[in-house]
């Protein structure tokens, strides 16, 4: 995360305890249910979620706002771009 203000999530998707590829699959489904410009926060414990969400946002064009870790839980903020 940068020093910029942390965006407030419009929706939260809890994928804690789920293994790959479920966090990415559910994120791809959830992002379609919010408006362009809105922010989705993904909560996940899968160790692959950090590289996978970087790769997924790079591929789909959605904006990865940041990834923070609290204990075992990754908080991933994604803005829908279109």
């Amino acid at each position, binding site marked *: 995360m940068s020093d910029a203000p942390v965006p407030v999530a419009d929706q939260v*998707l809890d994928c804690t305890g789920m*293994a790959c*590829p*479920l966090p990415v699959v559910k994120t*791809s489904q959830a992002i379609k249910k919010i408006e362009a410009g809105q922010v989705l926060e993904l909560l996940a414990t899968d*160790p*692959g979620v950090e590289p996978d969400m*970087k790769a997924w946002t790079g591929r789909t064009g959605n904006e990865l706002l940041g990834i923070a870790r609290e204990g075992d839980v990754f908080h991933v903020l994604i803005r829908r771009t279109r």
Partner: protein
Amino acid sequence: MAYFDAASAEPLHRSGREALLAALDEGWADPARLHREGRRAQLLLDQAREATAAELGCRPDELSFTSSGTQAVHLAVLGAVQARQSAARGPGHLVESAVEHSSVLAAADWLARRTGTAVTITGVDQAGRADVTEFAAAVQRDRTLLACLQSANQEVGTLQPVAEVTAACLDSGVPLLVDIAASAGRMPVPGGWALLTASARKWGGPAGVGVLAVRKGTRWREPFPADDRENRRVPGFPNVPAVLAAAASLTAVSRERGSTDTALRALVDRIRSEVPRTVPDSVVHGDPAARLPHIVTFSCLYVDGEALVTELDRAGFSVSSGSACAAGSGQPSHVLAAMGALTHGNVRVSLPRDVSAAAVSEFLDALPPIVARVRDTVRAGTAAAPASDPRSPDPRGAVKRPGR
């Protein structure tokens, strides 16, 4: 049935098999003994050492056989660093790329925890190629005792810039460990190394044989209790028949390289071009040109890597995967993560030398429907997830709108 996991273990070359069977009768005795049987084993061991050294471009007395590639790496890293640590230098500093084999990373981590050695892990680009500028800058730091860069990556096949890094190491007087496990027998050995490591089972030798070469003039000290075997570098009685088989295989595969590599490169090129075309939402990793001849790795979005490997196995194709769910550690591939590549739905195809074009065609035909089937299973599972209930704690997988 098609075996596509040569990067883990290439099937034993027929020359190695013949040498192994012969040596089981001739080379079973302790080569350190002076009796007839011992002398015979020593003669075979000397022959194996000379042949292997000739292929790897080193002197026989620089080369020791180990019990695995992993043991060779551990001895190389620990022995080189500990020989250069001193009261004046302190615990020192080690540089390694982020995509080194896990044995290199583990040895560096062990040094950091046990002796306080500072470890700098340098980055790679999207193809998995080490960043020369970052690596060279790290090497130039004070008290750098060792730098580690593989010849080629074991997961995506990308060749590493060893020649460029060698110059930086020479300038700074830092020994360079080049782990050639992925490329030995398949590519020329890069020059400029101070320490070299490899694993026989990856070139078509038997399991249980590794190689450690320490260039003359390189400071190295045995990191474990000393033993007279293998130039005092490796503890224990060498497995002479397996070592002889490893040497015979290396000689043979090096001789055949011209013809096998051309065929393997063409088949890998075909996989690299067809998978993205026939499998939706798939991406092929690694450098398309500066790569090993036999390895190609790709990832498929929204696919369970373990399920994909299992389904491919059921269909008769043996592959490996860097996905967390397919790994014993439960962690995703550190190579793919360092590249910023998708780690789930990952498949590594590494073609053995005797692979047929027909087997690759069958794989390419089978892959798209298998990926589609695994995706359908994953999607069916997510559709069955519980719906969000505002009166109860948030069920996992449910989307909720946070309170403002």
